[in-house]
């Protein structure tokens, strides 16, 4: 088990190399002049394009440029993100907590609703509640997040003025940037609570309700379906029949016996889901103008802010590979029949 985990950990830097190398090769479609112009901010300096090409080695072959970038990263310098208007490492520190809070706020409702209705669906198979929850799930799965997001904004922001887009209102903005506000954790909700700024806390939460609701509706389907089918499989097994035959209460059969075994695939899927949310939900963050990793990554990609794209993708690919490792290990922990690594 340990050997397996170590092997997978060694795999991590390899994937990160691959991800960045792939990005570099995508950029080779652009001419050296175009890539140089990305560094030039003032149009009057366009005459010095050759100097920029020379300075950043943009005419050198791809592997050489990639090597130069790696050298820079090895010195701990990820570069400067033009879209975020700050160094990449600072941008990650600024955007990641926002995404993290949104993830926490949407993940637990998804988990609860998905598992709860998945179990209900399986127990009452082919009954009204089963059809209903499956229908709601498949409609959520079919709804593009930008459509749902715009409709929610139209109703809850345009009409009711309850939940505005963005990260916080103007007052909160002034408050958190004032010297009186101490940033203990970097997580805005927690910091508001620690600083005893209740109205700011409510304001920050209010700004996260709509994106969290969008994520809940569009991501709950998968979890619900997995819970349902896994639960159906368990309920048809012999040990469930035994438990029923010995006169056990139906609730105990369902929740103590069957659910414990049915949860194994659910655990691994939800760990992947959690990290998926953490890696930045690009479209949802963009629609709600929520300053997280996903919005930054896609803005950087659109403006060819190369250090920005590299930073955002490095972070999310790192999370992705770790999530796979964690879900494999969880699988082995939950199910003693599975022995990873073949030992």
């Amino acid at each position, binding site marked *: 088990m340990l050997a397996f985990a170590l092997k997978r950990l060694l795999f991590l830097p390899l994937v990160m190399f691959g*991800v960045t190398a792939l*990005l570099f090769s995508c950029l080779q479609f652009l001419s050296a002049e175009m890539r140089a112009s990305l560094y030039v901010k003032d149009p009057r300096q366009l005459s010095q394009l050759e100097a920029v090409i020379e300075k950043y080695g943009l005419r050198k072959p791809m592997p050489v440029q990639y090597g130069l970038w790696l050298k820079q990263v090895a010195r701990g310098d990820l570069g400067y993100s033009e879209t975020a208007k700050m160094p990449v490492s600072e941008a990650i520190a600024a955007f990641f907590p926002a995404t993290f809070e949104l993830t926490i706020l949407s993940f637990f409702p998804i988990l609860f609703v998905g598992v709860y209705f998945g179990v209900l669906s399986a127990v009452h198979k082919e009954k009204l509640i089963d059809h209903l929850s499956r229908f709601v799930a498949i409609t959520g799965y*079919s709804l*593009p997040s*930008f459509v749902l997001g*715009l409709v929610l904004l139209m109703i809850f922001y*345009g*009409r009711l003025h309850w939940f505005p887009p963005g990260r916080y209102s103007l007052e909160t903005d002034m408050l958190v940037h004032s010297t009186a506000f101490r940033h203990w954790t970097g997580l805005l909700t927690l910091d508001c609570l620690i600083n005893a700024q209740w109205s700011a806390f409510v304001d920050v939460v209010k700004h996260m309700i709509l994106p969290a609701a969008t994520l809940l509706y569009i991501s709950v389907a998968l979890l619900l379906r997995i819970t349902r089918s896994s639960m159906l499989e368990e309920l048809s097994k012999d040990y469930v029949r035994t438990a029923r035959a010995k006169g056990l209460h139906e609730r105990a059969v369902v929740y103590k016996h069957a659910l414990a075994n049915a949860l194994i695939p659910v655990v691994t899927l939800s760990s992947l889901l959690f990290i998926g949310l953490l890696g930045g939900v690009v479209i949802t963050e963009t629609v709600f103008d929520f300053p997280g990793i996903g919005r930054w990554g896609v803005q950087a990609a659109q403006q060819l802010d190369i250090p920005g*794209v590299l930073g955002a993708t490095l972070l999310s*690919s790192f999370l992705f590979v770790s999530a796979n490792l964690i879900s494999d290990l969880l699988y082995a922990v939950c199910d003693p029949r599975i022995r990873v690594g073949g030992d």
Partner: protein
Amino acid sequence: MSLLGVSLIAFFLSVAALAPVLAPAPAGSRDPYSIPQDGFSPDPVPPSRAHPFGTTEQQFDLYYGMVWGTRTAFRVALQVVGVSVALGVLLGGAAGFYGGWADEILMRLTDIVLAFPDIVLAVVIVTVRGPGLDNVMFAVTAVSWPSYARLMRGDVLSVKERDFVTASRALGASNARLLLRHIVPNSIYPVLIVASLSMGRIVITAAALSFLGLGSPIGHADWGQLIALSRNWILGSSGDPFAYWHTVFIPGTTIFLFVLGWNLLGDAVRDILDPRQQ
């Protein structure tokens, strides 16, 4: 449920086929996919007799856009899924069958592409190659084929060890014959199931890229882009917050029903092809 899926897709198919009848291109138009403009006023106009679905900003007719956009949507869905499944079956099948270093390289490549947040990679590809529908399709294909390739490889690995393959090999069958006659037909079903289930997702991804403004030029009949045009109008006018509801609601519902149709159809295909689910 699957009946609903079939009827939705049948409905969209007939709309696509009958597009020239349902929404005839205005006389003198060179490209039926460019939506006619009724004036250049920046404000959307709600549904009326002249424009049954209303107009977007700059007066593009939504009804015309929806009808001809159906063709665009089918083209994107079928082309992207078709090419990525073909690539996945070809590369994954070869990797699983021959094994060795080619297999190793291919699987590491899929690891890398799958580790990317797919929309970000797709956006980089489109930005580098320039916006446009063809580049959107190229980008979505580039991020979708690895999952099919991995699935195909796994199935080929298990099928090639089966007795009937060994028997056929003992009878002197060539590699090509083994692959085409025995292995591929016995391992392709899971890929087809996943492909039919992922049709809807691919439509959403392509529409999301159009929504970000990377798709076809403004005025092309493309649903994702028509939704992008509604982004500035969700607040309505003063006193009437839902004044421009149609700009997001009509293209939104259309995409939703199209994707729902594919998802329900995909479920049905899985029930037919996958006996374990019965």
